């Protein structure tokens, strides 16, 4: 039995004997990716718990379990953890690390020690973000938390005035932004410098294209939010008066600066997810992908146009009407390449051989949920309708369909797809499919009623609501219960698979890309035995079988 990356590793410094220290100091991209996944999904469940608390509170009008102030902290915690700790590092930190170097035939990322440092910077950011959770007191026999109550958007002047602990949250977002920049930098250099010989940009797998477009956003857009957060801190503690109207500042400026980053960040989340879709669809249709070049370039186009549309978050902020029209116009240009990708994926299924294994189920489910998420986004890209729907549950439903039903669902698809690669074992297909159906049903019950409630005028971030919205909140509640049950079940199935799953071969899905051509499963420490020569397209199939095969020394054998 050959040694896998679980048995040996390179460390940032020293040669520690204990397994624990070997993991803490590891610079192996696969191990770092796994550690990101463990930490991120832990926080994911923290944020889910916060959301579930809110759903419980909203089950009936009036106050039930928590008071308004705690509710406001709960949605801030939910937003901050989901956005900054989970979904922004998200797919790049996990699969960008684990899979991207394998896909381009590299031994590791370009700067493995920087990668190790980035991971720990991320951990520091997480700890700072959550530190204020432990700053609670007990009054009248109940817990009083002192977490930020600003919402994850930190809008001025509220964030400047509140007495809750905004400073740690802002500093944490800054540190996490730094980690994100360094990840982006590392991936950019890796993709430019470490591609296998012969692999030009249009021979890269589409997931690598997704990571590449994302890395540019991480590198170029994140500094803007860093500056914004620093300005907010200076404003709050030194009163420099950038955002405070009493001193001649402008509160709306904060929203501009914030969304100049945070809108491209949305594409930073979705582009790698689209990349996963582009891997799964051809592999489970057993045929070459339709429109490779358009899919690759549309990622780049989305990343580019994505910088120019932040103003669509400000249609009711008091921004000038001319700016509203222009931002609305530009926003529609994001929809076009996104639509093209979808048609390309569907066309890939045409005259293929559709194998409905769990990853494919997740991918196809996401086509439904993300289509709803994307099209409902088009509604609020129309200025007139957004004036009505802005800051209502419609918007909430829209971005959860796009983020949860798009990014996170594809994240799950990726987990099921690359699970045998990472662990060399297989989960139970039957149980994993069952988990998918439970999650898919729960998801739609949870979020769809919110479109209607929002259209009827249910504003977001409301702790209490008018009685006629009760029915929508209650359907959502039961959806949430189904959804969380599905989540727990899915992770149970995966952990079972990790422990007791059947060992797999290096290429269980009959896929074509380089990460499935490793010598053993799970992969050895430094990946492929030799760097392959790539003179083929990434998804070449013939009669449903991968065209390219390698021998044990990575020489092509057909």
């Amino acid at each position: 039995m050959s040694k896998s990356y679980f048995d040996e590793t390179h460390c940032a410094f020293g040669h520690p004997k204990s397994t624990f220290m070997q993991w803490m100091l590891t610079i192996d991209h696969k191990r770092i990716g796994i550690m990101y996944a463990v930490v991120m999904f832990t926080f994911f469940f923290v944020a889910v718990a916060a959301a579930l608390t809110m759903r419980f509170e909203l089950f009936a009008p009036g106050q039930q379990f928590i008071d308004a102030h705690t509710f406001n902290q709960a949605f801030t915690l939910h937003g901050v953890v989901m956005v900054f700790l989970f979904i922004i590092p998200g797919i790049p930190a996990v699969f960008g690390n684990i899979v991207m170097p394998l896909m381009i035939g590299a031994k590791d990322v370009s700067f493995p020690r920087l990668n190790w440092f980035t991971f720990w910077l991320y951990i520091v950011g997480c700890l700072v973000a959550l530190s204020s959770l432990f700053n609670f007191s007990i009054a009248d026999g109940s817990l009083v938390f002192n977490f930020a109550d600003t919402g994850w958007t930190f809008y001025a002047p509220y964030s400047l005035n509140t007495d809750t602990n905004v400073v740690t949250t802002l500093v944490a977002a800054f540190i996490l932004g730094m980690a994100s920049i360094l990840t982006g930098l590392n991936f950019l250099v890796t993709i430019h410098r470490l591609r296998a010989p012969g692999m030009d940009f249009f021979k890269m797998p589409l997931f690598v294209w997704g990571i590449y477009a994302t890395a540019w956003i991480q590198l170029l857009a994140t500094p803007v939010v860093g500056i914004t957060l620093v300005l907010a801190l200076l404003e709050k503690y030194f009163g420099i008066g950038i955002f405070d109207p009493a001193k001649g500042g402008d509160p709306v400026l904060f929203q501009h600066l914030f969304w100049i980053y945070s809108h491209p960040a949305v594409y930073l989340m979705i582009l790698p997810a689209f990349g996963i879709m582009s891997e799964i669809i051809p592999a489970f249709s057993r045929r070459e992908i339709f429109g490779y070049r358009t899919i690759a370039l549309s990622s780049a186009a989305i990343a580019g146009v994505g910088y120019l549309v932040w103003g669509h978050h400000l249609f009711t902020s008091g921004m000038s009407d001319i700016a509203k029209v222009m931002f609305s116009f530009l926003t529609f240009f994001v929809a076009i390449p996104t639509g093209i990708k979808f048609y390309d994926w569907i066309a890939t299924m045409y005259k293929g051989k559709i194998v409905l294994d769990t990853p494919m189920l997740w991918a196809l489910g996401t086509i439904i949920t993300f289509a709803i998420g994307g099209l409902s986004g088009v509604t609020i890209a129309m200025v007139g309708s957004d004036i009505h729907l802005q800051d209502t549950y419609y918007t909430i439903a829209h971005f959860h369909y796009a983020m949860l039903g798009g990014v996170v669902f594809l994240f799950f698809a990726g987990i099921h797809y690359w699970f045998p690669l990472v662990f060399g074992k297989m989960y139970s297909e039957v149980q994993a499919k069952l988990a998918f159906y439970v999650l898919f049903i729960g998801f739609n019950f949870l979020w769809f009623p919110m479109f209607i409630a929002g259209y009827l005028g249910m504003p977001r971030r409301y702790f209490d609501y008018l009685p006629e919205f009760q029915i929508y909140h209650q359907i959502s509640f039961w959806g949430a219960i189904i959804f969380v049950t599905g989540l727990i079940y899915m992770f149970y199935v995966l952990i079972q698979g990790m422990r007791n799953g059947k060992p797999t071969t290096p290429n269980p899905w009959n896929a074509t890309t380089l990460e499935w051509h490793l010598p053993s499963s799970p992969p050895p420490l430094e990946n492929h035995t030799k760097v392959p020569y790539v003179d083929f397209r990434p998804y070449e199939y013939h009669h449903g079988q991968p065209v390219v095969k390698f021998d044990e020394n990575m020489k092509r054998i057909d």
Partner: protein
Amino acid sequence: MSVEMNTSNVLEGFSSRAATFTADLDQALWINLVLSIVLFISVVAPMLYFAWKYRASNVKDENIENITHHTGLEITWTVVPTLMLAVFFWYGYTTMKTLRTMPDASDAITVKVEGSKWKWRYEYPANSNGYVHKLGGAFTKPVQDENGKIIEKGTMDKSALYVPVGTNVILEMTAPLGDVLHSFFVPAFRMKEDVVPGRLTKQWFKADKVGEFDVECAEYCGTDHSYMYSRIVVLPKAEYEAWFNSNADTPKGNYAKGGDAVLQRHGCKSCHAVTTEKLLIGPSLKTRTLTKEQVLDVINNGQNKLGYAMGAMPAGLAKGTDAQEIAAYVAGGLKGTQPASFAACSSCHGEDGKGQYGTAPSLVSYDATLLGHVLKHGKKGMIGTMPEFPYVSDEEVSAMAEYLNGTK
């Protein structure tokens, strides 16, 4: 024609199209919905069909075709959706133009709107007598019993923005410096715009239906964000004119008198507890240590003893006779009026419940629980016998306890 005042906290009037531009906006939303469904089907229907038609058991490996391009199709699925998006943009643009093109000020009533934590207030132009109507105030939150059941619905009472039907109304909106963002959202009119401290933002509408329509704050603004309601009441023109040129508080009559009503109207209760000593945002007003002058000084000049911006009491939240009335009420220890149910008690325990110098025990330190227990079960004491009153209700007990507490 007069409109019955609706005081329940039910979202009023969404389903009716209440402003002149609402129909346009709904049309845009419907067009968007129909085209979106077409686009959705164009993606999902072929997906489901292919997943079924080309299912693994139905396809032989040699029948798989690696089609990677089809210029005609690719052009179609680029151009057709782009045209649809152009339609969306156009409807978004035209509806925005309707919503955002302010009518001529000479052909409109311009009302100043001030949003602050957590109330909406309206100031009208001077009427023919030179009197300036100032309306609005905080929403009274619903009251819940200890099981969380709502026993009293929240209400706007008479606080509202009263406008005539079929008339342009321009809202000039702002928030005080030191306050935060709010958003004036009227679901029935499909309109919304943020209210920004230190800035003037504008909206307009022309209501084409008599009725009442709720206003919600749509931009997160803190603890009571979800209670920052108000209401637009659309009146027949004659009724509006009659009120506007009078000095009456509202077209529905004057505000309730008494300190408590004034506190409610000015939103004091959003930050200050009144019946308990609980510290909300600001200190409880249930204090008996301040003089009227001291209270007036705080109202007029504000105060910041808690040391952070959100804990500061802004100056000038109430002015004139209202300020006087609040000061008198707070300085007087918030004495309520004697509840009717106390009449029988007073024959022994005295009007102030202090026991008429030993005729009966003093009740001023009794809380509701103790009071309720003694009332329901009676009591035999040194002085005499307290009879049972088993039919007394919880509400009556709490009213009595509150009254007694105020006479301390």
